[in-house]
């Protein structure tokens, strides 16, 4: 039996990949449904069709975002158009969404895109929302993103962990790239998750899982290693961001990749702080390492996503 089959019938996980986060559909008591996170913008039609099938004629009343990275909220606008759902976001980025400040929303820094949307309500840490017939506590979960939340339903013992905890690791600790605190916050959220002791975790990426102890152990070990070396965290972030772009475009010439990456603030910061090499050399080095690990393939001067 897979972990997903142990979920209450009112909770349905649409497991996606790395470009798009998972989408969690919760069937509410009144015949409508709530969707947690909506994937990346280039997948929006696919997300809409997946959700339409899973709804089986029910209406989508609400969209809830755990955080506003492009791979979690890129389908918001499309799903709102298609289903008329209201959108509910954590409060930290609310003003930035209202102004659509792509810099503050990290889309400029990461070199990623997102379709503009407006929000209808906030999910405040410390409050509770009802989804799928269960009460979910909203817990602040900064570390990966200062304004992220995780959602915890004590009744069924299910945690929607976003990018704070995956079966094998967690999302890049972005604040530390620019000298802000993130490791301490990540440690705190891992400890909180340990104390909640969920029976089942629905992560932002990857399959739902039940072996919490092992996942926490891996996450703590990884956090120890990253926090011991800011440079290691930065090198990891640079590779993750290049890989994300390859997932998005699937193939790109080296020159176009360099040009794209030059527009993304995180890359410039990482190079200035940790690599200090000519920019195109810095980008080539990330590609070389991705090729070495099997995450990319070179064909002449073209870089291709390896599909893995």
């Amino acid at each position, binding site marked *: 039996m*897979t972990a*997903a*089959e142990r979920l209450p019938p009112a909770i349905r*996980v649409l*497991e996606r*990949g790395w470009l798009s986060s998972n989408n969690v559909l919760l069937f509410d008591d009144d015949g409508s449904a709530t969707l947690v996170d909506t994937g990346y913008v280039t997948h929006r039609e696919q997300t809409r069709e*997946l959700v339409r*099938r899973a709804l089986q004629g029910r209406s989508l009343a609400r969209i809830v975002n755990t955080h506003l990275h492009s791979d979690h909220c890129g389908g918001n606008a499309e799903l709102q158009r298609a289903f008329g759902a209201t959108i509910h976001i954590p409060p930290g980025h609310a003003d930035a969404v209202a102004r659509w400040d792509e810099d503050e929303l990290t889309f400029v820094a990461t070199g990623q895109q997102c379709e503009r949307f407006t929000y209808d309500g906030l999910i405040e840490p410390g409050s509770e929302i009802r989804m799928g017939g269960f009460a979910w506590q909203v817990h602040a979960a900064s570390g990966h993103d200062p304004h992220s939340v995780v959602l915890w339903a004590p009744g069924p013992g299910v945690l929607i962990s976003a990018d704070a905890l995956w079966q094998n690791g967690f999302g890049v600790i972005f604040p530390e790239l620019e000298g802000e605190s993130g490791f301490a916050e990540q440690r705190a959220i891992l400890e909180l998750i340990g104390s909640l002791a969920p029976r089942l975790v629905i992560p932002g990426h990857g399959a739902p899982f039940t072996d919490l102890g092992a996942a926490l152990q891996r996450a703590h070990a990884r956090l120890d290693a990253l926090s011991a070396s800011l440079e290691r965290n930065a090198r990891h972030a640079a590779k993750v961001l290049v890989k994300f772009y390859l997932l998005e475009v699937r193939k790109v010439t080296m020159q176009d990749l360099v040009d794209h990456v030059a527009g993304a603030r995180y890359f410039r910061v990482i190079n200035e702080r940790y690599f200090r090499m000519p920019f195109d050399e810095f980008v080539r080095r990330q590609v070389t390492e991705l090729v070495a690990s099997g995450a990319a393939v070179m064909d002449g001067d073209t870089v291709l996503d390896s599909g893995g």
Partner: protein
Amino acid sequence: MNPSSGWCSGCLRTIDEIAGWSHMSDDARRAVWVELAHRRRQASA
């Protein structure tokens, strides 16, 4: 999604395969993986 093949351009799965993925048994997923290898060859042909 590729409109002519009905496959996701990235992972080459159909909408049904993506929708059902988290509820598939390991054997069913392996069967899809085998099929994906064929599709990858077709897609690059």
